[in-house]
């Protein structure tokens, strides 16, 4: 099994730089998810690994082999495409065996491989059909089968689930994770869906504007984001970002401006306060995840809690949780409370914030403090 190493990879399309010098080391057997907003270069990076695009500069290694000049067919990779890209005139069986056919693999080996993966993916009854006669989920399975059947060294996935409906997407997500656990092949997976990234990845590379902002395991990316971009991209509903100033008054606080007379001052826990002790007056952004804001007194008491009262602007029940939208200094913020704590619009609500899980960012650079 091979890992993948990217070494100062750059890609320009004409005058536009799409990938701006990316270094990335993927261990053998890892499941790495490239995630980012559209246009961040994640699909281009995947195509570079696949050999479907030519490098502008830098090197790509699969295992120990430098593959800069190696065409896709000789990279020992398989790829699943967003559009499925099934061959419309071929049957499911012919779709799956096409790659083996072009490599002149003997018929009995082909048949055995088809049998193995068709059963695994539950498409064994569809082998004689054409792609046009399949549902979206079935096409997705065939596309997976086509990739799996050659038993390549590396799997590449380009937003494979984004054309499926919500229910099927969750099913296939689990399926892909199971497959990876079973086969253990090195995989690179591109998505713009941060939940897919969180659930599937052993490590996530968060990309923006041709750079990798952070490359770490899902828990770290979520709980310990490197900057405002990563913090804002990961998590749904997104992290609340409250601009403010650092003030000293009984320890460090973030002053988020007057709020109908009562100034909102979030006390910083010691761990953060120590890091910014001499930065009084600095412009900062306070990041609070919705789940760290809840109805006062509903969670076990803990250190560094901050309690304040604001009226409910919108109440959004989702079933397992209820989202309460409220305002601080003209900004809409979201708290995630238990359904039984929900209150109708306009009623005052006492919120409790778990400041230990708050993140602090430099407002100028966006970097974590």
């Amino acid at each position, binding site marked *: 099994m091979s890992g993948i190493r990217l070494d100062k990879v750059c890609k320009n399309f004409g005058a536009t730089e799409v990938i701006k010098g990316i270094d990335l080391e993927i261990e053998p057997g890892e499941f790495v998810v490239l995630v980012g907003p559209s246009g961040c270069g994640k699909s281009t990076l995947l195509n570079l690994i696949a050999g479907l695009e030519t490098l502008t500069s830098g090197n790509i290694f699969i295992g120990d082999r430098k593959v800069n000049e190696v065409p*896709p067919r000789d990279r020992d990779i398989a790829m699943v495409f967003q559009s499925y890209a099934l061959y419309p005139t071929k049957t499911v069986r012919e779709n799956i065996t*096409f790659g083996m056919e072009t490599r002149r693999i003997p018929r009995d080996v082909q048949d055995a491989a088809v049998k193995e993966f068709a059963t695994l993916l539950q498409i064994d009854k569809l082998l004689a059909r054409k792609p046009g006669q399949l549902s979206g989920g079935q096409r997705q399975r065939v596309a997976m089968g086509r990739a799996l059947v050659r038993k390549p060294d590396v799997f590449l996935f380009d937003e494979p689930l984004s054309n499926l409906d919500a229910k099927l997407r969750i099913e296939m997500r689990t399926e892909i994770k199971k497959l990876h656990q079973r086969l253990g092949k090195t995989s690179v997976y591109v998505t713009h869906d941060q939940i897919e990234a969180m659930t599937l990845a052993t490590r996530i590379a968060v990309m923006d504007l041709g750079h990798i902002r952070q490359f770490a395991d899902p828990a770290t990316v979520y709980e310990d984001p490197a900057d405002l971009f990563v913090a804002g991209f990961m998590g749904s509903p997104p992290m609340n970002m409250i601009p403010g100033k650092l003030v000293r008054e009984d320890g460090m606080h973030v002053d988020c401006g007057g709020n109908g007379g009562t100034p909102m001052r979030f006390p910083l826990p010691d761990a953060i306060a120590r890091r910014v002790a001499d930065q009084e007056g600095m412009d900062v952004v306070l990041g609070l995840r919705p789940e760290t804001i809840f109805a006062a007194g509903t969670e076990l008491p803990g250190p560094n809690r901050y309690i304040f009262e604001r009226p409910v602007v919108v109440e959004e029940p989702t079933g397992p949780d209820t989202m309460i939208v409220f305002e601080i200094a003209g900004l809409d913020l979201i708290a995630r409370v238990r359904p039984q704590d929900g209150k109708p619009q306009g009623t005052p609500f006492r919120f409790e914030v778990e400041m230990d899980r708050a993140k602090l960012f430099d407002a100028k650079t966006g970097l974590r403090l």
Partner: protein
Amino acid sequence: MSARDQSGIVRRGGIGQRLQRATLFALLGLFCLYYLAPLVVMISTSLKSLDEIRGGSLVSLPQEITFAAWGKAWNEACVGVRCNGLEPYVWNSVMMVVPAVFVSTFLGAINGYALTKWRFRGADIIFALILFGAFIPFQVILLPMARTLGLMGLAGTIPGLILVHTVYGLAFTTLFFRNFFIGVSDGIVQAAKVDGAGFFGIFFRIILPMSIPAIVVTVIWQFTQIWNDFLFGIAFTVGESNPVTVALNNVVMTSTGVKEYNVDMAAAIIAALPTLLVYVVAGAYFVRGLAAGAVKG
């Protein structure tokens, strides 16, 4: 891809509406007559005897149906000085049309495929230049082409005519295929590349089987254009190698005493029959192909 059934759509009723529809159909019927009249006259005249033509009117139907004129047009009518009918010239046309259509369609398909799925620097400029050929009036290239054919030793021969039609067909066939392939997902080609197929492997095994509608449209178009061509035929062939369109002209122009309208009409129909036949057989594809991509199927 069937037309949506509209019979269930609620329409306003009332006398005014009914009157409107009646007018509509009356108008449609009138135009049908107008367009069909020449064909009807041609067919009925070709089935009459010369005596009947002389005695009756142009629009009257034949009293006694006779196929004598058809037989004469096929193998007795005089084309210039030779009097063995249209038959040899029909075969000339077939021998010219089949290779010209096949080669120009095939090359157009490869062009369209390369221009859309293997993008290279300058692809758009090359396409624009090829497309330019579609807008050049054929009269402009008569002399240079005659000179070229002369230098190649193909002047006055059927292979020469095949070459001319292939070259000038490329602009249209490339356009048709390029516009068809631009709608084919690039992912399919990428998947095939990962699967290990090369330029021609992908073309023959994946792309070509997908392009049946485009092929049918292009073949009909090319067949009609080349079969019906008169200008290149008369300019670049001589006597025995004339295509049927030129021969038809000669049949009509060669008169020995009495003008045989029935033979002329039969000859004209014979010359037009292949394109009519192609349209009837594959016409549904043609309309579908031209409309393809307009809406999601």
